[in-house]
């Protein structure tokens, strides 16, 4: 078994020490710091990215909140304006209606006055016509036995009934 040949031990030990020591210093001085730096940079980068994402999310939330507030305000103002307009219009309409009602009432009153005057005039005319008609009829029927006054009184009595 070549592993038990003691004469090969010293070169193996010497070269093992040389190569292992060389590798140790290469790793400790060059490789490991390099890897450590890269890993650290990556961790920092990820942490930064997460922070950035968090910040952007907060910004977005604020923007959404602002938007919603603005929207609510706009809605409230629109409602207010609509309400005010409605009230103003209904006031105008009421005023117009009152004005028209008054005008109509005045015209109706005037018309009624004219009608009343015409009626009383007509009624007065009717009495006279009745007297004359009755006088003519009585004269035609019974001749001059009834005086004008008697006939007028009878007509007035009849018209009163």
């Amino acid at each position, binding site marked *: 078994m070549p592993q038990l040949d003691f*004469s*090969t031990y010293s*070169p*193996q030990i*010497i*070269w093992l020490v040389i*190569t292992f020591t060389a*590798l*140790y210093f290469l790793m400790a001085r060059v490789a490991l710091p390099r890897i450590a730096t890269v890993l650290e940079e990556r961790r920092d980068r990820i942490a930064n990215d997460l922070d950035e994402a968090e910040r952007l999310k907060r910004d977005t939330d604020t923007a959404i909140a602002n938007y919603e507030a603005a929207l609510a305000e706009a809605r409230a103002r629109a409602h207010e304006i609509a309400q005010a307009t409605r009230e103003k219009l209904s006031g105008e309409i009421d005023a117009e209606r009152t004005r028209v009602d008054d005008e109509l009432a005045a015209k109706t009153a005037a018309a009624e006055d004219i009608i009343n005057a015409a009626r009383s005039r007509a009624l007065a005319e009717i009495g006279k016509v009745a007297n004359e008609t009755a006088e003519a009829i009585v004269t035609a029927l019974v001749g001059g036995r009834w005086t004008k006054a008697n006939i007028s009184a009878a007509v007035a009595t009849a018209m009163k009934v």
Partner: protein
Amino acid sequence: MAQFEIKRLVPIEIFGIDASFTNSALWMLIGIFTVCVFTIFSMGGRAVVPGRFQSVAELGYEMVRDNVGDAGQKYFPFVFTLFMFVLASNMLGMLPYAFAVTSHIIVTLMLAGTVFIGVTVIGFVTHGVGFLKFFVPTGIPKVLVPLLVVIEVISYLTRPISLSVRLFANMVAGHTMLKVFASFVVSLGILGGWLPLGFMVAFTGLEIIIAFLQAYVFTILTCIYLNDALHMH
């Protein structure tokens, strides 16, 4: 067993000690070069979104770092180096004509011994003489204490052996098994060789898993020993 042979490529001798550049040393160099490719050159871009090679480096880094724990961060570079060295050696050993550095007991024993001595020193530096209490289990009858202390000390001392033999034996067994079945393919020829060949294909996959797993186990056990020394259970 030829695949485990140490060949002296450049004979070197320093103060009478054989320090030849062998095939083992060559594959150690290839190993650390491969590790550098994955951990240094792949991180050249330092991309925030990693590519494939960079992902491998980051995965290895995070896996080892999480296992070392917060208290052991000082020793993290060593544990990471250990993991990468063993993993590269195991994996490169799977290549045809390659030499598996970790299939030699002396290499794994040196690594395990370094871990063992290091962990023991850390234990004494952290807790002073109080580290000896590590060998005295709490909550047992007084009579049993001497027996259990002996058992604890023996189990502590066998740690480097179990650690090194586990890795070494896994590598040797796997490579030998592949070699044996490969020789079956040749000896059974074009007619009967398909069965061992199929088995070899499947077994190569398993060996690659084992190559990773053993590097992982070696590292995890190192982390456990380190935590024992730092926290005394």
